[in-house]
């Protein structure tokens, strides 16, 4: 039987007295694309950031590709596990977060060289392949400030892929983009899904969710309000909360 790529059990997150995530479970199978939607403040981004421990969960366990971490166990071993998980999980941010002092190529080769100790020449060859894959090879020597938002986000995706992750986490990757630039990023994400990448995507792009996702989740007030295949989820939601939300955004 196939083991889930991501296994989350009883995840809680508090910000001070604020209970943001209230004990959620999730299994994501290899090559599965899961889309999480929901109103702002529902905890979507926090959940995603808990997966690679950019936010330390308050309780619960996260297991990615066989590496399991129990929340709240500080120590050397814990930190080592976190770095292992982070190398397995690429992340794409809403604000791109490219390194402004490095060129597109420099952004991509940075982590393979420093973290994976990959030889520079090898990293460059790989980075050029990735740039070509996202359609930006001609921008290899441009600094981020000279790229459009869509181009920056595509470089950011390439940068995450350079670490050869097992899963990709997308945190509202198109929210900061001008409407006419969203398409080029979504297209790259679709191709990535088509190549069998395991993806967890927090997004408001309903089209992407409907066309590409294997499963859609509505998150509200720190819990899953509804979870199901997109066909059913979008056309025939079971929960009242989902209906309201979809009515709001469609």
């Amino acid at each position: 039987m196939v083991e889930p790529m991501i296994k989350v059990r009883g995840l809680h997150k508090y910000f001070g007295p604020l209970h943001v995530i209230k004990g959620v479970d999730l299994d994501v199978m290899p090559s599965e694309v899961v889309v999480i939607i929901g109103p702002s403040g529902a905890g979507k981004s926090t959940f995603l950031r808990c997966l690679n421990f950019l936010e330390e969960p308050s309780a619960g366990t996260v297991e990615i590709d066989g590496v399991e971490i129990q929340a709240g166990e500080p120590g050397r071993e814990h930190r080592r596990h976190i770095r292992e998980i982070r190398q397995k999980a690429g992340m794409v941010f809403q604000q791109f977060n490219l390194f402004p002092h490095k060129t597109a190529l420099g952004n991509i080769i940075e982590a393979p060289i420093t973290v994976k100790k990959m030889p520079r020449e090898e990293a460059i060859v790989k980075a050029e392949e990735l740039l070509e894959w996202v359609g930006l090879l001609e921008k290899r020597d441009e600094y981020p400030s000279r790229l459009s938002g869509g181009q920056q986000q595509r470089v950011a995706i390439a940068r995450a892929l350079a670490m050869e992750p097992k899963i990709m986490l997308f945190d509202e990757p198109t929210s900061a983009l001008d409407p006419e630039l969203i398409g080029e990023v979504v297209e790259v994400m679709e191709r990535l899904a088509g190549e069998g990448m395991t993806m967890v995507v927090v997004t408001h792009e309903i089209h992407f969710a409907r066309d590409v996702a294997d499963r859609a989740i509505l998150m509200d007030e720190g819990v899953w309000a509804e979870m199901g295949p997109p066909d059913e989820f979008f056309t025939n939601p079971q929960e009242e909360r989902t209906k309201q939300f979809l009515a709001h955004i469609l």
Partner: protein
Amino acid sequence: MSKLNDPTLRSHSREMRLLCLLIAFTSGLSLLYGIQYYAGGPLRLAVTNEVRDLALSPDGNLVAAGTRDGVIRLWDIAHNWTMHILTGHTGSVTGVAFAPSGATLFSAGHDGKVRLWDIPTALNAGSTGSQLTQEWDAGGVPLNDLALASDGTTLATIGEDGIIRVWDTKTGQVIQSIGPNESTKLAVALNPDGTLVAAGDGENIQIWDARTGEPFQRLEGYWEDEEAQEDWLGHEKKVTALAFSPDGVYLASGSAEGTTLIWDMKQGQLAWDTKGHLGAVSEVVFDASGQYLLSSGRDNMVRRWRVPGGKFAGIFKGHLGSVTGVAAGPDADTILSGGTDGSVRLWETINNRELHLVWTKLGLMPIWGTVFAAWMLGSGLLGILLAWGLWHVRTWGHLGALVLYVVGPLFTVVLPLLETTFYPITWSTRLSIGWPLAVSLVWYIALVVYLRQDTVAITYQAPGATSLAEQLMAARRAQNIRHGLFVAATWLLIFILLFSILRRFGLDVAFMRKWLPFIMGGAGVTMYVSAMAILLATILALIGALGRLSKNPLTNGISGFYVSLIRGTPLLVQIFIWFLALPQIGITLEAKTAGILALGVNYGAYMTEIFRAGIQAIGIGQYEAAQALGMTPGQTFRRIVMPQAFRIVIPPIGNEFIAMMKDSAMVSIITVQELTFRAQKIGRQNFRNLETFLIAAAFYWVLTIVFQFFQGKLETHMARGERR
């Protein structure tokens, strides 16, 4: 806008035709002046005549001055300094001497002639007899100096050919010819009875028997410490002036490096050495009693020395150029001097006061006449070219004319005009010699004001432009260049004004030139101290900033304490603590080390805060992106945060570096021999603090300008990721 597109304005508008006409007119006049000047024409800026040698008649009533235009001027002191003129020489008159009777004046000049003049005839204006009584030919070789024995029987000259000629004054025959002596042909001296003749031989002095021409004696310097070759007693450069004392016991010599030496003729040894002049010594002479030696120098000064002992006995300042001739005055306590500024001055030795001043001719220093003529010729030629360019609507014609008439007159007209304010003459006299300068200055100002007018300037901004956008761009560019030009001219004007004002108050340029190498010798230490302190400060600041940002109470506390303590106490106090207080607890530091530590630790504290702010300015997203890629906190800091923080802190850190370079002057108080220390030392020793500190200030200024330039380059380089 519409003006730009108007073709009639773009070529041959009324303004433009007028401008071309104005510039052509100006150039034509300038050329005329220049050409006639170099052809020896009559129109020339009033310049004074350089005095080359000076003599006082035995009765003390007449002063004779040989001048550069070949005229000997005689002033009758008793008759209110009435001037008489003796003409005959065709080149500079380099030597004059009165016969003991006072009835004859001997002169030698660059025309290679020795001439004898009858003084009574010269003084009697109504006399028809010839003033010139005899003319002796020295072979047409320019003569550089003349010496007459006290008894008047023998005369010696030295020429450009290096040959010393000894003449019998009765017969006018050369009785002995010595040389050629190639190494020094500047000065010659005869002892009182005319039996010995002395001339320089490089930095040594050779004495011959005047009758036989046989070498008699050689005077040479020596090392006081023979083995170590230290403390040279003697001249270091060639001998430029010589004189025997009235009793023939001593020989005085002056040299190109400014020393005057007194030699004992009996022992053939150096008796006393004196160092005073900052430039070459032009003449030395004993007064009638033989008690004092007088020397004149290229540093515009006359100095007086007591003969037994060679002690300094007075300095006489006032000449505006090199002093070329000096003589004992008509009274025991007076001195006469003449110089390249064309003045002859009588001084009182008791108060070092100027008693009387006469001009050979009223005018500017001769150099200004030359500069003005060169400017007229050069600007005339250039102006014609520019007028051609303007006629053909070329932008370079307009900008070139601006540069020419804005910058050129600063040096050729404004500077000489300012110089006349030094001259001890009345305003009406000033105007009478400087009027050509004043008129041309007013003309140039009017020309520039006209050139600056938009209606004129706009015509030239874009002759070749085809579109309005191109025209506007070209107009903007030309405007920027014009603006820059006027800013630069303003700077130049300020420099010239400052320089003139400082000179008016006695800024001693010769002194600055002399001590510049020594003071600048401290620049190395200054830069070393600054560089080491900057290095130390940067390291401390980096560590300090990490400490300030750390959550660990120990490191946070230490760095907080460091910053608070250092920023809360004066740098001066810190410097004293490092150097003077630490020895008390057993830590003795070398001055330079203490200075570097004090500066480095002090600036480290200030830079800590800058580094901290720079690091804090990096957004959280950068940390998250790096972490999400699996980078460790160390890698994140080194590879992602530091490079970005560094770029942010370059401007403020650069300012700190510049401030530190200047504050490095403070370590001079703990005896570090850097630039400021040396400036202070020399300034105090010589009471010339203005000169020495001006040098120091200029150095710091230039250093910071250079540093700012490189800082700008670095900023542009580092900001390449941010450019849009």
